[in-house]
């Protein structure tokens, strides 16, 4: 085979046909309010941890909705669970418990 000095770049397009909704669906069973999110970003704006760890509830939820579990996990690890996001959520989503629930579901597959 020839050596060309480059290789085909990987695609980043999100193929929504192939999104694995299982984690999101599991989350919605525990936390049906997760479906209510309108991505306003209040949670991320107020997040104590965000400025230090990049945590953003909005992004976590979005990543879960898009089947990007690893990315969501990376963000979740930076949560300090202070609960400000819950206080500011205009849709009254219990984001703090949502985070805890997610942290638990992550382990479920391995069991």
């Amino acid at each position, binding site marked *: 085979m*020839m*050596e*060309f*000095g*480059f290789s085909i*770049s*990987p*695609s*980043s*397009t999100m193929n929504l046909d192939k999104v694995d909704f299982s984690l999101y669906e599991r989350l919605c069973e525990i936390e049906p309010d997760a479906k209510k999110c309108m991505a306003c970003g209040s949670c991320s704006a107020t997040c104590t941890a965000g400025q230090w760890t990049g945590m953003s509830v909005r992004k976590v939820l979005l*990543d879960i909705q898009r089947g*990007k579990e*690893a*990315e969501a996990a*990376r963000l979740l690890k930076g949560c300090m669970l202070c609960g400000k996001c819950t206080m500011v959520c205009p849709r009254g989503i219990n984001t703090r418990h949502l985070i805890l629930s997610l942290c638990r579901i992550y382990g479920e597959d391995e069991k």
Partner: protein
Amino acid sequence: MGKLYDELSEDYRIKEGLKTCINCGTCTAICPAAEFYRYDPRKIVDTVQRKDDAEIEALLKSDTIWYCGECMSCVTRCPRKNGAGLVIMALRNLSIKKGYFTESEKGRQIYPLTKALNGNVLNLGYCVHPLTFSYSDHPESGPVFEWVLKNKEEVYGRLGANYRKEGPGALRRIPQEDLDELKAIYDVTGGTERLELVEKYSHAKAEEMGMTDEEYLKYTFEYCSDKHFNNEG
């Protein structure tokens, strides 16, 4: 409103390509670069329209603005008649003018590009020419083109090109007086100045990186780190 933005807004491509962006994402949706690079034209246009100098400066020094392929697909779909591609061109222009391009890996590639393309334009009158197209730099041109390059006169001759000869036709030798005119145009319109600028900043960067100009040329032409791709997660 910042100075950089003011300078940017002088550019006709900004006048044409940046009205008001509503962040709808039609540009990114079909952008070839957004698919293969860590790149989002929507965000770039949004950054520019925020007119924050610090943000714009960061942009000018980043790899981000160098990912676009200038295919202009974004122009077709924008509901506000913006052209992200045009904005990018203006940003690149400013990045070069300010010497910020040497701050990023992709920006530094301006050096080999400038040398090769303008060398061709000024010496041959073409942007691309078989004389300066080497197979070793272009292994993807295939064994067939290796063969063409080895037999330029024969192959081009057989296909009716006027290869390196006087008079009209494909690959003809462009008369010196016309090349002189091109040089004069470069002189008058800032093209020459641009070449010198790129040369100057690149030379400085090469020194900073501890390379000779030749090493720097080869390095910028070939080196690709893996931080550019956008497929994580």
